């Protein structure tokens, strides 16, 4: 039986509000956050800065279309 990440259909989105002084700083923080979470393959989907910080949504693709899906691995596909 695989881990829970194997059962993620495609991607993991992280959404939060980051406190920072500029859009650039918040962008760096968003990326560092994903690195710290162990998700180096990520993309900043949206980031809106309006002073004080940014509303941010960062995505880590675990499986891209055409890849080898964890949820189809032996033992996972049968619901084990």
């Amino acid at each position, binding site marked *: 039986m695989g881990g829970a990440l194997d059962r993620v259909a495609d991607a993991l989105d992280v959404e939060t509000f980051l406190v920072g002084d500029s859009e650039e700083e918040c962008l760096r923080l968003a990326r560092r956050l994903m690195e710290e979470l162990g998700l180096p393959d990520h993309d900043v989907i949206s980031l809106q800065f309006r002073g004080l910080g940014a*509303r941010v949504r960062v995505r880590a693709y675990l499986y891209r279309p055409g890849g080898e899906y964890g949820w189809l691995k032996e033992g996972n596909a049968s619901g084990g």
Partner: protein
Amino acid sequence: MAASPATAPRTRRVLLAPLDPVHDVGLKLIKKQLEARGHQVTLLPPDLTPEEVTRAALAGRYDCLLVSRTVGYESAEILARLADLLDGAGLRPRMRVAVGGMAVRPELAAEMGFDAGFGPGTPPEAAVAFVEEAPPRHDEEALSLQKPDLCALYSYHWKDTVIGDAARELARGIVAWAEGARTPGSERAAVAQAMLVADEGERLRLEEEYLHLCGDEVVAMRRGQPPPHGRLIGEEEKRRALGLFARGRGWQPLTVTGYQRLPVVFVQYGTGCPVMDALHAVVAARWGAQGTVHFDPAWSARQEGLPRGLVAWSADGTFYTPENLQFFREATGNDLLWQVRAHRGLNTPETVVWAAAAGADLTKINPVYGSLGGGTDPERLLVDAVAAMRLAARYGLPFDVVTNEELGGVPAHKAIAGMLAVVATALELGARPILQPLFCYSPEAMLEGYMEQDYVDWNAAKVIALRRIIDAPIWPGAPIGFLTHTEERVQSAVTTSLHAGLAASLGVDAITIASTDEAYSRGPITAAARVDSLRAVGEVFRFLGEARVSPTTRAEKLAEQLLEGVAGTLRDALRQPSFCQALYAGVFGTREEGGNPGRAGRGTVTRSAPQ
């Protein structure tokens, strides 16, 4: 419009190139703006290769090349190829190049050596600034907001004379009944007023007087004991927070209301911590909120007296203390309409005093809701509410009159009748009340099936009925869409925004909106949840513009039904010995319906003269 000679920039020759199969509207918008400012612009056709774009750039003497790329696939490869070709052709030293579009990230552009990169959502003005080599037009200048007066346009003329006469008769009775009555709450309000103008020595004496009017737990807190699961916030932490919030306020807010002047959009705060509250409020203001509503703890509303100090705790609601209120005002600046609620507990008149002293713009008073749905004894709260309304009139603080007893099951016509009696009392005392019907999926609506068909007609009926009764401001709350939210974020944002669209369609003066965490009750609301609701509301306002959501004919019938019910309830109240007796007797909601006369403060009213 062309730039005026005084502001006209040097004319540039600009080449615009869409590296996509079809034209990018962004380049067309940029072209229009550049030409309006006198620049010479050439827009290439779409679907050219990097080689063809390079040849076109070589053929003219351009100052700038703006390239757009919307399609994501192979963007990096194509833009890298273009960068190499431009370099190879020797164009880069004399021509500035920027790339933009949905597929572009500024850092990608920088990696490839372009002079600028404009990602999704970049306004055309940024490209214009690039061409003109002007500083990018950020929104860093704080907007000087004109805080609206929600009551200014209204005469408070009673249009329905039957209802108006009954409400006014009840109001005169309430004022006469409250004459000479006092409570620990009204006495503390008097002490609080004296404290505001006292010197240090006198304040110490007044503090002792105040403590004699407080419950034990409040006395302990005023003597320095933090609240359970709470702490006092130190000076250094306060200083850092104020510095941070001052920087955050230096950004122009997004505009939520768009084409519509109204409604003014309020958000609620009350995380338990004044610092977190201020962060949420500053964030909400940057995303377009125009007002905030302070929620105090339910626990505190049932205590005699208010704590003091800059104090936080980890339960619901943020304490009213003079220091917390002052901090919030200082942290958030003066560009938000600020409501401090005084409506339901044992500290109602005193709250008005501290709210006014801290610079609040609005308060909230309704003894009917506070006693039938808020847990305070009707006699106690009615005396305190009259005192609070007098203070609100003196300080020039308008207040809304809520009808939240509907959430407990009280029928809307009874809640509205109670609200109107309070509105009449407020007018009798020279105050400026605001009607606050609930936009909610109330128990009554569920049981009677008023909202089975839609969420429009029943809410619209309340506004239609109120408009026929009195010419007064209307501020549906609180929050709009109450009991229609779920914990799912998208659903929550959508239901809030659609109710906001309905409110805008009905032309009401203000709304209070929930965050997308409205239905989540196992933890505090998050800053992101506030942003999401505001963005959703902004989108619906943008979608509607000056168009309107139209109720069905059923709304008219429901409004007529409400008018009849309101008139009947007021008649029933007039048959009681006093308005206070009417509250105990269930005229404004029986126990079975959900109107439960509260017990907090029972037996604390004293009278200086027999009534």
